[in-house]
């Protein structure tokens, strides 16, 4: 929570510096005060880390909880012309991406590993997955003004992982060691085997983000966008899960333009 308050504080600071700048240097027109908007935005995210198209090993999603995922961003939009039709927006954003899911799987190749030792096999049963990551993200977008009320934007984002959690447990099922005919390790009566792949999360993410914003008045706007991570959220040499998972999130929030 402290961290979130810190981020909010930082964003306001950045915002007020930007505003102060635009007040002070108004007399001399330069790149930073001509056809440029400084803004803040905040959003809630709903989404998950998911394979593209669920593999057939996943039989049922029993529950999905997006949790409270938020993002705070300070950005600047440089309009190419005075009519503010096309612009380029760059910013800096702190955001959390996460979810909790409970899924039923069948013959899901996985491994339980710790300190170099591992048990690999085919798991059938319930898998609980908890993802909670914090990223420092730099978005770079093109912005297009559809009308006085509507802008659309899209582009790329680049994220550095700041804090990482990817863990969970298996329960109410069994693991067939090595092959589907191997030793059957049953998890009954609520017994669970925990796994933690937090240290195997990829430190750098990049992807694409597209969305639109609706200007309520001169300062406030509502926005929604979708973002999709191009790379697997887990490291390349990580094989405990044999399909790649991508960050796919829908952001909904509001922005303030100074």
């Amino acid at each position, binding site marked *: 929570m402290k961290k979130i308050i810190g981020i909010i504080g930082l964003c306001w600071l950045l915002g007020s510096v930007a505003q102060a700048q635009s007040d002070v240097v108004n007399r001399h027109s330069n790149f930073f005060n001509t056809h440029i908007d400084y803004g803040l935005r905040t959003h809630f995210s*709903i*989404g*998950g880390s*998911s394979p593209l*198209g*669920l*593999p*057939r*090993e*996943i*039989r*049922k*999603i029993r529950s*999905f909880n997006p949790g409270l995922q938020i993002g705070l961003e300070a950005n600047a939009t440089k309009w190419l012309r005075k009519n503010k039709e096309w612009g380029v927006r760059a910013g800096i954003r702190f955001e959390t991406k996460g979810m909790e899911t409970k899924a039923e799987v*069948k*013959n899901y190749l996985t491994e*339980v*590993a*710790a*300190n170099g*030792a*591992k*048990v690999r096999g*085919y798991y059938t049963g319930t898998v609980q997955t908890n993802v909670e990551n914090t990223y420092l993200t730099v978005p770079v977008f093109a912005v297009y003004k559809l009308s006085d009320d509507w802008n659309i934007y899209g582009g790329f984002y680049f994220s550095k992982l700041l804090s990482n959690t990817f863990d969970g447990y298996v329960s109410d099922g069994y693991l*067939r*060691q*090595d*092959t*589907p*005919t*191997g*030793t*059957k*390790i*049953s*998890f*009954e*009566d609520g*017994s*669970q*085997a*925990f*796994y933690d792949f937090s240290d195997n999360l990829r430190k750098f993410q990049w992807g694409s983000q597209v969305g*639109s914003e*609706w200007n309520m008045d001169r300062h406030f706007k*509502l926005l*929604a966008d*979708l973002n999709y991570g191009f790379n697997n959220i887990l490291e390349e040499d990580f094989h405990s899960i044999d399909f790649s998972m991508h960050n796919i999130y*829908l952001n*909904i929030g509001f922005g303030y333009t100074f």
Partner: protein
Amino acid sequence: MTKKNYLILLLLSVSLFTSCIKEEALNAEADIEVATIPNEALVLQTKPSIGNNSVVFRLKRFSGSFMQAPEFVLTPGATIEPASGTERNFQEPQKYTVTSQDGAWSKTYTVSFVVDDGADFYSAFENAEVFEAKNPVGYYHLFFDVTENGQKKYNWATANDGYNILAETLLEEGEELAPNVYPTAQVADGYIGNAVRLRTQSTGFLGEMFGSPLAAGSLFIGEFETAFPTIKSTRFGLTYNHDKAPLALKGFFKYKAGEKFIVNNAPSALTKDTWDGYAILFEKNAGLDDNYLAGDHGFQDSRMIAVARIGVEQQIETKDWTPFSAPFSFVNGKTFDPQKEYMYTIVFSSSKEGDLFNGAVGSILHIDEVELVVEEVE
């Protein structure tokens, strides 16, 4: 965008995730799930014990022929060769091959019928064979005795099968998978001939993750079927084929406690590791279901009618073979009724609180010449 639009977008993205559950793959497993024979409640002592590669039927008495036509329930869609219900001669164990529904996997089962109508409660631990486990690979001892019919019976079980899940990950530098790296193994230099060595071992980080932070060496009458919680894997008990109540548990032991006593489930009654040995006589359920005692019975099961357990004066460290003896006492206000059917078990552990995963890595118990005394010696 209006609220309504957001809602539609939200629903769309959710349905994107849920609508793409693909068609289920064919089953890849090839298990015998249930094994039966006609009139099994009359002719079998207990429910057939089904392992990953074996099925054992324990017959109450020998009818004069080993011709049997066992029937099997398999993983849905799997097939078995020879077919379920085929009559075969089980004088010797017979092989069956089960192939999975998707055709990609198969495994071989050894199916045996053992007649054990004797009431021989003496174990010398002279016979052990190396069991070659597959998936994962492992080599550990199975103890057996030979019946009057010349058949092998495997009344003593160990938890080696469970340890084998992690055995390869626990090898020390220079060690290889062999019976001597497992918690329970046969050794030479027993009190007479061969003996059993039980050793408390670490299960590493993975063991902890699986909720079994320690593996005490164990040896017991019954069967082991890997399950979690691990303590449910040990199924104590076989049919008690005698018309008198047992009197005492006797045998010989050597014991050395490991250095560092670890308590994984506080509180512990101990500060230093020690061993345990006990026998329990308990009532058999009507029918063949759930006749065994689970490893976590804690001497609280209401089916128990008599218990013999070694005392503190025998829970000592000794380098020399030392006799132990524990008399049976009736519990739960029950008495022995020769008309009733009973089960019995004998259990040894290199760590007394091994069922709670409290113990010292390196504690070693040797056991030999174990006898369940039934008749008074004149």
